[in-house]
């Protein structure tokens, strides 16, 4: 509430206004996201790449996909880390503002899904605040919590690998954030039908 009061007179960037307008309708689209990042502290850490893929009508739409690499030259330089792997990657590279803008355009009002998604959302919110935008408004579902709910399990960490094995999701080489998002999407499909979410 306070946020809203504070921001009531603030002028948002255009893409953010468009994003906000999309929330007039509820979405039937799920977007599974996965980030590669330097860590989970929103104040210090940065996003290296974003992979996302959409699930609609109980199936993964391969075409409805998003992947981007953000070469965080400054962060790498500050922390004295080699930036070779990012330079060598053949995937599209964008600066953080461009990448975040494209990402916001892509997700729209979809329900976000991910493994321990709150960390991802915190990081994205941080990146958004750097662009003078508000926080993400999307609903979010956490795969780990879905698994716990389904099986009535106590608070115990379930790493992604373990879940993939448990639900017999066929192994793909999980190299990039996009691969992770795809594996997560398959996992989500199974959990979704088991939990009866529509």
């Amino acid at each position, binding site marked *: 509430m306070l946020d809203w009061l504070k921001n009531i007179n603030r002028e948002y960037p255009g893409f953010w206004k468009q994003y906000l307008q999309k929330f007039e309708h509820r979405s039937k689209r799920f977007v599974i996201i996965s980030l590669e990042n330097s860590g989970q502290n929103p104040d210090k850490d940065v996003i290296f790449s974003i992979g996302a*893929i959409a699930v609609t*009508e*109980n*199936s*993964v*739409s*391969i*075409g409805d*996909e998003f*992947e981007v690499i953000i070469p965080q030259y400054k962060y790498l330089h500050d922390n004295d880390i080699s930036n070779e792997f990012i330079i060598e990657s*053949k*995937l*599209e590279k964008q600066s953080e503002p461009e990448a975040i803008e494209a990402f916001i355009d892509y997700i729209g009002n979809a329900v976000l899904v991910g493994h321990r998604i709150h960390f991802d959302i915190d990081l994205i919110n941080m990146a958004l605040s750097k662009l003078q935008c508000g926080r993400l408004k999307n609903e979010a579902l956490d795969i780990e919590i879905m698994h716990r709910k389904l099986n009535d399990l106590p608070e115990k960490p379930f790493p992604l690998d373990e879940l993939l094995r448990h639900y*017999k999701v*066929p192994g*793909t080489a999980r190299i*990039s954030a*996009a*691969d992770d998002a*795809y594996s997560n*999407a*398959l996992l989500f*499909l*199974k959990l979704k*039908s*088991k939990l009866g979410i529509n």
Partner: protein
Amino acid sequence: MRNSIADRIAEFLKDFPPFNKLSFDDLVKIASEIRVVSLEKNQTLFKTNDQLHSSFYVVASGMVNLTVIADAEETLLHKCIPGDIFGLRPFFARNNYMMTAKAREESLIYAIPISIFRPYVAQNQEVLNFLLESFAATSRNPLDQDLRGNLVSDSISLPEQKQEMQFFQSLNYNKNPLRVSSAQLTQEVATLMTENLFDSAIVVQNSFPVGILTDSDLRSKIATGRYPISIAVDRVMSAPVITVGENISLAEAQLLMLKNNVSHLCVTADGTDRSEIKGVISQHDLIVAQASNPGVLVKEIKRSHSAKELRQVREKMGEIIRSSMSKNIPLTHICNIASEINMALIKRSVELSILDLGSPPARFAWMSIGSQGRREQLLYTDQDSFLVFEDVAPEKYREVKDYFLKLAKRAVGVLEKIGYAPCPNGHVAGNPQWCHSLSDWTKQFESWMNAPGEKSNQISSIFFDFEIAFGEPKMEEILLDAVFRNNRKNSFFDYLGNDALRKPAALSFFKKFQLEEEGEFRDKFDIKLRAIMPLIDGARLISIAQGIRGITNTHMRFKQLAMSDTKHSETYLSCAEAFLLLSKYRTLEGLKNDNDGRYVNLDELSRTDREKIKFALEPMEELHEVIKSKFRLTQFS
């Protein structure tokens, strides 16, 4: 923008037809339109009469069963494994699906939109041909391994195919019955029937059946003088006629005839008497259908000229076994039929090898041993055999042995192609160790019986369950003589007895099943080693000791023992029953998973089934007691 997931999928697709005919860039384009669907076990993707989907499907992982339902019975058309395509109907036809696609296990399916794929089909003749072929596959056997990946699925619309598919359920009947109008005179109709050698004529009005005139009508109404022979046929016909639909099964036809007390059924397009006549089924058709099926297979085997043809026959036998099991036909009958067919297959394999190699230089006999020799082989288990040839002059020995080794290797190879894996212990005639002259074999059996466990620790007891499959029956006699001449030797029975008792227990101290603790079959129950083998071994041991010749089948051995050894007859009879029951569960498991059914997943069985198995394990204890009391076993020898 590059889509790395689409790349991955294109990478997967490019190994399978028809996608291997397309360029990688095209595949990436197609892949980026794919939707991935996840199916739970037993989830249905589409079923018969569903509206067509806008996509066709490729299995990415798991397995999808395609089935058709005829006569309220599901018939499996094809098991789609990763890379197989199915659901092609929307490409070529407008009407609804003709089959059901259901996940056999958790599966991932790529749905490729038809609208995306159609341009590639139009541009690429090879792709089009492949799809057409797959759609209209006229292959005789959809399970044929050689056609894997080539053939799929939507072919059920072809009538010949259908006939083939339901070979064992459907009936052959007269498709062109005699049709007469209701105003015709009985005498004329009778003349027509006699001329055409038919025993019935269908009376038609406005091309719909209104009645039927059969031999028995003529007998009871005309020959008795109740009606003159010049009367119109509609006065003496049986009406109304019982009508049935086209794909009626044997069992159903039988039931209808009994229920309505008629000898003929009229087949119509939709099964009512208000549609076109398609044929007539007589009692005789039922008899033919009942009597000839396994016989037809044996005939087919005799006519086959390649391992591939034999394989198709064996697959059909799988169908017989499957349908017989589901109809609760006694297992002993199924075993008898299956072993006749197995024997015919082995015989034909040896014959084919002889045809290739030229006639043999000496007389010989091909012996089946193990489960084939005991006539208990229902599943694709391994083949075990040995070969005996008559004694020849020493200078010719080498040459003769070489010939038979070659022959045996070839025959074993043919059998392998049919689907019988060679014995992992090498107990096949192709092995130089098990291809000997008659005197060598006599000696071999004698040394096994006189000094068991001396040379090699593993005398395989399965060698004592032999049955001749091909060749000179006299040799079998001579070997049997050798075995029973020596059956007074205690050391041999000691050995066999210990061997029989040494099998790991089936139940734990707390009457729980002993499951496999590690390895691929973890938490499954080894029904072969822990439950069936002890019975087989026990039956063999006691029946050889009692001098029961000529019976190798475990069930029959127990039955025979119950008669000859009355003191323990109850134990033997319960063992016989237990053996059948356990074999049945093994066979069911094997059919379900397409393997030898050795490891049973108890979790999938119902509680009553588990209790039945436990109950069947009880006679084993008694049998062990009998063995211990009969033979002086030094347990720790």
